[in-house]
């Protein structure tokens, strides 16, 4: 993991910034979100894929690509969370200032 992080730090930084931006927007976004049932399916899918990666059942290059995708996704989600939380704080402070 540490090896992948050092080898792909550029791409991971990209994913983090992308997530941060997405998170920043998501707080004030008025469009439809994904439904609860879709979210449940996605969560199951995520568990299966993570389990596959941890069990190392996918061989060779696809296995590596899967690992990379999961790491990018994780970093992206961290970025999203950070972005949304910060945006929320900014809005809250602004609101109290009003």
């Amino acid at each position: 993991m540490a090896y992948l992080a050092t080898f792909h730090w550029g791409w991971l930084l990209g994913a983090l910034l992308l997530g941060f931006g997405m998170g920043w927007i998501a707080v004030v976004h008025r469009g439809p979100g994904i439904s609860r049932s879709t979210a449940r399916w996605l969560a199951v899918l995520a568990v299966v894929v993570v389990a596959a990666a941890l069990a190392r059942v996918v061989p060779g290059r696809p296995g590596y690509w899967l690992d990379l995708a999961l790491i990018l996704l994780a970093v992206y989600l961290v970025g999203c969370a950070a972005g949304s939380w910060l945006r929320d704080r900014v809005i809250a402070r602004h609101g109290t200032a009003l």
Partner: protein
Amino acid sequence: MRGLFRWSSKWWPGTIPLAVLWAFACWNGTAPLESDLAARAAAALKDTVLDKAKIAAAGRDITFAADAFSEDGRRSAVASVEAVPGVRLVNDETRLVPEAKPFVWSAERDVVRVTLGGSAPLPAIKGRLLDAARNTLNGVEVADRMGLARGAPPRFDAAALLSIEQIGKLRDGKITITNNQLSLSGMARDLGGREAIAAALKNLPEGFSVAANEIRAPPYIFQAYKDPVASTLTLTGYVPDNNVHAALVASAGRKFFNEKVVDNLKTSVGAPVGFAAAVNPALGALSRLSTGTLVVTDREAKLSGDALYDAAANEIRADLARDMPRGWLAKPEISVKPAPSPVDATVCQQLFNDLLGRGRIRFEAGRAAINSDSAGLLDRLFETASRCPTVTVEIAGHTDADGDDHFNQALSEKRAQAVVDYLVKAGLPPERFKAVGYGSGQPLAGNDTDEGKAQNRRIEFLVR
């Protein structure tokens, strides 16, 4: 926390550019990552002794194939590849180097090269053997046909290094180590080489023994070539020691009165028994030939060339066979040189003077018996005498002034007569020769030095 859940339902649009990002990362990053991991794995194996190590990376999975020299070595090699950071899985295709039974190693020398074959226990030992071969045989091509195998006996490397040293002493041959037995065959490079190898084999490492030593010694060759054009006698080959060498060269100098002796002899052990006793008479026989070659190989003396006349040819054949020591074989291949054209009396006298100016007829001290060293000169005098068949020749004997005058007078007469007898026995008519003795009455030089006396003791041929 509830906020996060709410917001997270709207994070999904970013996954589309994320997927694009991922695709780019895969596209650009896979090959560099694979080569980086392969290089790290190879570096991790740097100090491990393996044969045919092959590392291939697919993604983060390493396929590792190699031949290891022990089970422990194999396991630790796989473990060190697994420990490389970033490696996800190791496809272990390692195996142990096959065990050779029996463990055979060989070094073979032929005309152009030395070939090392069979099995070596480790790459380092293989390299050491090759280096040793190149150093020992500097200049000779060394071909490596060695494979790697387990199962070498302890101290194999020392035994193989010793064998390589011995291969340097061979002209051609093969040394094979089978388990802990050595077998040797071939021919030594120099005389004495066989003995040197046998001595070196006493230092074999513990546990090794010689199963068969069939190294042959090179033939002991002595050659003499009489070249009438260059007027040289060339001696080549071996003599047993310096004493024999000096005696042989001195004897050649006496026998070949007309030729310069070119001495290219080398001293070496390994001479056949009776070497000097065989070579000396054979050289005497060669001195009677007009042109010829003497080859002494082990216990065989082969003499080929042209005698000056028929009787001489027969005599040379008979003498050579008679004079060889026991166990020796004489092989004379003597032909007869065509008779030279006749000349008149004046030229005949000149030819006699010329011959006797270069060599003297020698006798046993104080006696009238002709020394066998003078046979070559007498043959030439005979040849000259037969070129002027009509003339009568006075053969005059002279002595030095030592001793009693009467004795000297009688001795000079007897010696002159001995020469006449030789020529008559060889086939010339007796009425053509007249033996005369002058005692010490006609000295050529002073009788006060050994040199002067030697000049005075002489036979002269005078055409009448």
